[in-house]
C-alpha cells in the first residue's frame, strides 16, 4: 500500500523539553489517522513538522513521497492544514475567506466546489457574514472548506473539535468520513479518547512518545486484564473503599462507575460482602470491555 506519511525517528527538543522523542510511524493513503493524547503530548509539534512549518532536530519525515526538508515547496501545494486556532481572517466574510485561500493556492472556488459542496452548503446562506461573527460549529465548517479548496492530497487537522459542541462534533466526523471517497488522506489530532473510534487507525501519544499505534479495535483489545464496572450512589466513598481492598489492583472513576481490575484477574466474590461491611450496600458490579481510555491508562501506568 502507498504511504502518505513515513516518519522515521523524529526528535524535537525545545530547551529542556523533549516535545517529540524518537517518533516513527507510517500512514497509508486514504486513511483517517488519529493522534490522540493530552495537551503537551506533542501533537501540534508533530503536525508542524509534517506540514513543513518546522524542522525536526533528528530523523526524517516523508510526506506524499516528498522530503519535508528538501521538497517543502512542492509538498506545501498538496497539503491542507487546519491549525488549532487562527486559521480564518475574522474581519473577512465567509466568502472572502474562501476566495482568499483559493487564490493563494492558485485555484478558484468554482474549480473545486464539488469537493466542499457538502460542507460549504451549510454555511453558504451566511456567506456575507464576517468569519468572526460565526458560531463555533460554523467556523469549523468554514475552516475545513478553506483547508480543502485547493484539493489537497493530505488534510491535516489539529484539534478540529476542541471547544465545539457534541452535535457539531458528530457532524464534523461524518463530514470527514465522506471525504474518504475523494482519496484524501486525513490526519487528525484530538485530546478526546472517544473520538478514536471514528478513525481507521490511531496513535496514542504521551510526553512526546507513541504509547501504542493500531486500529481502535485492536488498541482496546490490547487491554491485558478483565475489567469490571462498580456502581454505587456514594461514588467518592466507593473509590476510597475499593482502594483499601488488597485484592484490587486498580480502581479509577469512569463517569458514573468505577473501573476495577483485580490482582488475580477474577472477580472476587467476597467483594460484595466487603463493600456491604464497609457500608456500601447498593453496589452493582458488571464485567465490561475496555475502552481506549482504559488502555491509555494502562499504558501510562506501565511507562511509569
Amino acid at each position: 500500500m502507498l504511504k502518505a506519511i513515513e516518519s522515521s525517528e523524529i526528535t524535537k527538543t525545545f530547551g529542556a523539553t523533549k516535545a517529540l522523542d524518537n517518533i516513527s510511524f507510517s500512514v497509508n493513503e486514504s486513511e483517517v489517522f488519529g493522534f490522540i493524547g493530552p495537551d503537551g503530548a506533542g501533537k501540534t509539534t508533530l503536525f508542524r513538522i509534517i506540514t513543513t512549518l518546522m524542522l525536526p532536530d533528528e530523523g526524517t519525515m516523508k510526506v506524499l513521497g516528498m522530503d519535508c526538508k528538501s521538497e517543502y515547496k512542492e509538498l506545501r501545494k498538496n497539503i491542507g492544514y487546519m491549525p488549532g486556532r487562527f486559521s480564518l481572517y475574522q474581519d473577512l466574510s465567509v466568502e472572502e475567506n474562501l476566495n482568499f485561500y483559493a487564490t493563494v493556492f492558485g485555484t478558484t472556488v468554482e474549480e473545486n466546489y464539488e469537493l466542499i459542496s457538502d460542507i460549504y452548503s451549510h454555511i453558504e446562506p451566511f456567506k456575507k457574514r464576517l468569519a468572526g461573527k460565526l458560531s463555533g460549529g460554523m467556523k469549523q465548517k468554514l475552516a475545513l472548506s478553506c483547508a480543502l479548496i485547493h484539493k489537497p492530497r493530505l488534510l491535516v487537522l489539529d484539534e478540529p473539535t476542541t471547544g465545539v459542541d457534541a452535535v457539531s462534533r458528530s457532524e464534523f466526523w461524518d463530514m470527514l468520513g465522506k471525504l474518504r471517497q475523494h482519496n484524501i488522506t486525513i490526519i487528525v489530532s484530538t485530546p478526546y479518547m472517544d473520538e478514536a473510534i471514528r478513525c481507521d487507525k490511531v496513535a496514542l501519544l504521551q510526553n512526546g512518545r507513541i504509547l501504542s499505534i493500531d486500529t481502535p479495535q485492536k488498541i482496546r483489545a490490547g487491554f491485558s486484564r478483565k475489567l469490571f464496572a462498580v456502581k454505587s450512589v456514594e461514588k467518592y466513598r466507593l473509590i476510597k473503599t475499593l482502594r483499601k481492598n488488597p485484592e484490587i489492583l486498580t480502581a479509577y472513576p469512569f463517569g458514573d462507575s468505577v473501573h476495577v481490575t483485580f490482582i488475580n484477574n477474577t472477580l472476587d466474590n467476597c467483594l460484595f460482602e466487603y463493600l456491604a461491611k464497609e457500608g456500601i450496600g447498593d453496589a452493582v458490579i458488571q464485567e465490561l470491555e475496555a475502552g481506549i481510555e482504559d488502555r491509555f491508562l494502562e499504558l501510562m501506568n506501565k511507562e511509569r
Partner: protein
Amino acid sequence: MMGNKVITVRNLVKKFGSFVANDNLNFEVSAGEIFGFLGANGAGKTTTIRILSGLSKPTSGEVKVAGFDAYRQTENIKKNIGYMCQKFSLYEDLTVKENIVLFGGIYGMSKSLIRERLVELLANLRFQEYENRIISDLPLGLRQKLAFSVAVLHEPRIVFLDEPTGGVDPITRRQFWEMIYEKAASGITVFVTTHYMDEAEYCDRISIMSEGKIVALDSPEKLKKQYNAPTVEEVFIKIARP
C-alpha cells in the same frame, strides 16, 4: 435529592433586546451536588452562568445563589463562589505561592488564614517542592489540580468549572475528579459546564439546554434510560438541537 438548596432558579427570563437568551428556566441545585449544565453553542448557558455568578441581572424571575438574591445581592454572591476554566485560571508568570496569596487576598481572606490554607494545600497536593516555582514551568496536570484548589481556597458554597478536565491526561483526569468528589462530599456544590459528554457522565444530575430552554434534567443514568441511549453523548445529540 438532598435537602439544602444552594441554587434556586424560578421562571428565570433574560432578554437582550427582543432576543430571549433564557426562556423561563426552573431548577434547583443542592449542597454537595455535582451538577452538569450542558447545551449546544449558543443555547444560553453562558447567560445563565453570568447571572448565577452575580455578573448579570435577570430580566425577570427569582434567582437565589447561596441564599443571596441575584438582583440586589450580587456582591455577596461573588464572595461565595469560585470559578475555574481550563484555559485561564492562574497567573502563569507568578509562582505557586504568589498565586495562592494573590487569590486569597482577592477573596478577602486574612493573612493568617491564607498562610494556613497555603500549607494545607501544598501538603494535600504533595506540592511543597513546587512552592516557589513559576506556574508556566509546571506540568499541565499539576497546574489543573492547583487551579481547582485555588478556586476553592476560600471554601465557597459553589464552584463553577468550565470544561475542567479537557485536554488533561487520563491519570490526572481521574485524580482531578477525585478532588471534585472530595470537595462535593464536604458540601461544596460543583457546577460543571462542558461540551464533552464523557465529563457529563461524572455528574450527579445534568440539565441540557436548547434555544434558551432546559429540555432535559435528571441523572445521567435516568436520561440514558429515558432516551434509550448508551451514552449521555447520544442523549445530547437526540435533544440538544431543535
